[in-house]
């Protein structure tokens, strides 16, 4: 009997990793009921992980065009970033910023890179949403657009910080790997090590598009009497 022994971590995962649209008190209640009737903790964990995976598979399936667009939009980003940072104006900008005392010099460089990435995400999200709105005859609200812009930059910040942490923890250093003299546009697309640079763009574009185009609600049908 496992009465009252619901694993907190699994329950937390169920509560926080299942998207809000599909989160219902029925599933956690059912799992708890089965656990109290004698199912094992292993069974509970399996059910929770399956529920999380299934719910995210549904989200990806429902939003497959958005996911596909976000992935494709992120593909040329490392190449554009590479050419932008190789340009003369960037060197001029850097020569100005390094005159600032630390941390302002680093902050101004980071801000510029973040702004460039945000502009890239915003233009991609706007292109997708305007095309979608035109094809699906949907109207866009200014409030939705503003919210999407804010969400995009917040997600971008978080994802950039997350990928920077992964790079530092796993020694997945790009600087030591990429030779700027021989680096080509094709390499920037095919190089698997540049995938991490695309992750913040993918996540940010996804959240921005979802903020601009929230899901429609469905009506309930009449039961058999």
């Amino acid at each position, binding site marked *: 009997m496992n009465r009252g022994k619901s694993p907190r971590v699994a329950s937390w995962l169920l509560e926080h990793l299942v998207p809000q649209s*599909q989160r219902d*008190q*029925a*599933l956690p209640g*059912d799992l708890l*009921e089965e656990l109290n009737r004698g199912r094992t903790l292993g069974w509970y964990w399996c059910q929770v992980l399956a529920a*999380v995976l*299934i719910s995210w598979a549904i989200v990806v399936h429902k939003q497959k065009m958005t996911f596909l667009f976000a992935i494709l939009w992120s593909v040329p980003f490392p190449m554009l970033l590479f050419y932008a940072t190789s340009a003369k104006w960037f060197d001029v900008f850097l020569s100005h910023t390094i005159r600032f005392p630390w941390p302002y010099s680093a902050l101004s460089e980071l801000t510029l890179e973040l702004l460039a990435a945000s502009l890239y995400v915003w233009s991609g999200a706007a292109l997708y949403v305007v095309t979608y709105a035109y094809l699906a005859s949907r109207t866009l609200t200014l409030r939705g657009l503003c919210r999407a812009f804010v969400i995009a930059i917040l997600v971008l910040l978080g994802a950039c910080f997350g990928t920077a942490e992964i790079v530092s923890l796993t020694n997945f250093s790009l600087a030591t790997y990429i030779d700027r003299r021989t680096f080509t546009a094709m390499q920037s697309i095919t190089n698997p090590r540049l995938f991490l640079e695309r992750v913040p763009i993918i996540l940010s574009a996804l959240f921005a598009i979802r903020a601009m185009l929230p899901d429609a609600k469905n009506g309930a049908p*009449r039961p058999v009497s």
Partner: protein
Amino acid sequence: MEERSYFGELELMVILAVIGLGDDAYGVPISREIEKHRGRMVALGSVYAALERLEKKGMVSSHLGDPTPERGGKAKRYFRVTEAGLREVQKTRQALSKMWRRLPALGEKRV
């Protein structure tokens, strides 16, 4: 795009379980019923995903029951088949029954 109305394998099992259980059709008995007939464990998440699809297609409807202490104060979601759902199950049964008749016995020569 129009939502398809025919059933997937799990959806058919789920709606048949909902019909069989009547007023007591919620997640736990539905998944137990499927496990009993299928002979292997079924993820409650996939049962709920199938129920959600069925509800979206108008085949079943649902309502929340009262919260109970043995479920950590969480309510049960009860499901009922709709008229459209029942009609679709009947149509599926007719179509499948016709096709099952052509199934050869094991070892029988196929024409």
